[in-house]
Each structure stands twice: as C-alpha cells, then as structure tokens.
C-alpha cells in the first residue's frame, strides 16, 4: 500500500460545458 500517511485522495472534475457564461474571461474569482 501507500508507504506514507494520506491527506487526500481526490478525483477533481471540471465540467466546462456547464460553466456559467461569465467564466469566459473577466476578473478572476478571488475568494
């Protein structure tokens, strides 16, 4: 198995076709 302790295992999906229209450019989303 994994020899080191695990913090996270993730599947990170991006569904571009469902982005809001404003996703094409503009000021970034600082959070």
């Amino acid at each position, binding site marked *: 198995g994994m020899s080191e302790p695990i*913090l996270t295992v993730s599947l990170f999906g*991006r569904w571009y076709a469902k982005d809001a229209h404003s996703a094409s*450019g503009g000021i970034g989303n600082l959070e």
Partner: protein
Amino acid sequence: LDTFIAAVYEHAVILPEKTETPVSQDNALLLMNKNIDILEKAIKQAAQQGAEIIVTPEDALYGWSFTRETIFPYLEDIPDPRVNWIPCQDPHKFGHTPVQVRLSCLAKDNSIYVLANIGDKKPCKSNDPTCPSNGYYQYNTNVVYDKKGQLVARYHKYHLYSEPQFDVPEKPELVTFNTNFGKFGIFTCFDILFHDPAVKLVKDFRVDTILLPTAWMNVLPLLTAIEFHSAWAMGMRVNLLVANTHHVRLNMTGSGIYAPHSPKAYHYDMDTELGKILFSKVDSHPRSSPDFPAAVNWADYATTIKPFPVQKGTFKGFISRDAFNFTELSASAGDLTVCQKDLCCHLSYEMSRKEENEVYALGAFSGLHGRRGREYWQVCTMLKCRTTDVTTCGQPVETALTRFNVFSLSGTFGTEYVFPEVLLTKIRLSPGKFEVLKDGRLVNKN
C-alpha cells in the same frame, strides 16, 4: 530529440515598495534588473546542466499589488513574434525595451529557450470604445526566446485573478511554438482552470508540453499547486512545466516538472525564503512513449457497479464555500458511497491501522464552485478531517498519521476532464505509488 532536459525556477521575487504613485521608469527597471540578476544565475545553471528550456514564474520581475497606474512604468511594448525579432541583436527596433533585450541576450548567450512573464502595453485610439483612459491596453504576458534570442512566442493571460492592473484580451489566445524537442503551448496560472486556452491547446493543437508560469496561492485540500498541477498533467496526458513564485506568507510555493504518468520533479517549501531550480529529463513526444497512459473512461466503473449502501450518517461540510456531502470512514476498512445531485462517489479502502485521533471522510460535490459560481466542478474526495469533529471535514490540514493498504476511488462523472489528486502528509506527492485504471478507478499500486 526523443528526450530533453527541462528546468523550472521557483523565484522569491524582490518586491517593490508599496506606493500609490507610480515610480519612474528608471526605478522600475532597477527593480526588474535585480530580479533578472537572480534569474540570470538560474538560466546559466540550467544551461550548464544541459537544459534545453527554462521556465520562470509569473510576476517574477516586479511582483503584484499594483494599480493600472503603478504598473505602467514596468511595461514594455512587446511585438508579435511574427516580426522575427532578436532583441539582443537589434535592441532599438521597437523603442525602449531594455527588459526584452536583456532576456533575449540571456537566451542567446546561454543557448537555451527562456520563458519569462512580463508586462505588455499596447496603445489604443480614443475612437476605440473599450480603450482604457490612459490610452493603453495592459497585459499580463509570457514571452519565449529561443536559443538565438529570437522572440518565438507571446501570450496574453486571459483569466485574470484579481489583477486590476491588467486588461483581459479580446479572445483567449492559442499560442504554440515548435522545437526539435517537441511542440509547446503556453498559458498562465489561473488559465489552467478553464477550457480555453488550456484544454484546447492539448486536445486540438496536440502540444507535447505545456509551460505554466504562475503565482499560485496554495489552498488545501484540493488546490495546492503541486497537487493540482501534477493531477492536471496526468488527466490531460501532457507534460507540464510549472514555475511558481516563492512567497511563504502568501502560501506561494510549489513548482514542478510533471509527465503524464508521474511527477518527475517537484518542490514545495514553506520553511525558507529561498528560490529553487529543478531539472528533469522529459519525453519530447510523450504520446509516443511506452509510459504514455491509456485513455480513461472516468465514469465506467462507477456507473456499472451496484452502489455501495449509502450510510445514514451523511452530513454536509464545506471545502472553501462549496457544500459537500460527506460520509465518515468509520471502520478501518469498507466500501462507501456518497452522492450529490448526479454525482455518486464510491470508495473501497483498507487502513493499515485506524488512528484513534484521526477521522477521514468521503465527500461529493457537483455544482458551480465558489462565491462567483462560474466554474462547474464535480469532485470526489477522501480526506482527513482537521480534527475528530466531523464539522471540520474539508478544512485545511497538513499532517496525517493514517496509512492505507488499499484505496479505490471512482465517481459517476458527467465530464471527461477529471484530474487525479493524491496528497501525502506534510504536502508531498507520491510518484509511482498510485494509478488510474482505464475504467476510471484511482487506486494505490501493489
């Protein structure tokens, strides 16, 4: 060349003093030259090690926290590469361009491709309704010089991340250049989260290697630079050379050379204020390599199995502002499913020993991410909660003790763009220790 040596440099930027009034052009150049002095050492070192190309970070010459006015003295007019300009040989051809001349000479004198991030200013006319009031568009720009010092690529960043000093170009630019060690594409930092230009360069333009200068602020548990960038290279099946700026107080660190099957070299340092150069040998044409991973049908396994019983104790938790559905890994081994909307995430796992003072949870999220709700995310994540209180699941945590003998994570994704992330205790990657099966399962090896 079948392979080449790549270099990336994580640079601790010498920042300007904060000011609300613009400095003189001379003072701006003085600061940029101090940063280039440091980059010069890295470039020379890269050349001595036989590197064909070196990538330096976003904002590496002047930093950040500017207004449109205070950035202006740092900007130069950067021409279209089609003019075939070698600034080092013809320094006055496009006006006063000392930064471009120096970068070009560094590439030429050391016979190495150099990518740098600088600021471009483009005059516009008052009859242009979108022309800014100072008469210039201002762009966050990557430039690439070849071994002769010729400008071969220019890219204006499209997805700005709180950068009021810069303008958004009219359309996303799809910038590539060819070498005898493969076809390259470039974009900048936050661009990597979007389809254009990032995905289009890989899918439609078939580049071999992406160059990514960035000033990336790490955010656990999903968006630490080394974690996300290594996952993007695997998911997109492309080489990715990432140079991050180094600024510990702003959580900026994490550079790497990532191949489709595994990270080749990476650097993460929250302990020192030092820069760092990385080298690795990389396949020029990864698609032709025996290591090239097969295409993955990300939802294949998850949509064909009978879901594991959904536990009664499903609870809501937040990663950043995103509300995930979580379920706790309450036993030391088991099979779990947690769903949100159309996304169901399945996990099979076996811990080598369940630590009493640690809690892990499986989470699912499908929706528009963040406060602005612009990007649609689908995420399956198995993570360590910050404390044993499950309300802390999703909050940042940097260390863990629990080892897993087995894990298998999959999800009913509606998208083909899925990036497999594995992060170990103390923010480390695990090259060669996990793989993605063709049916979409992310599993440990052995």
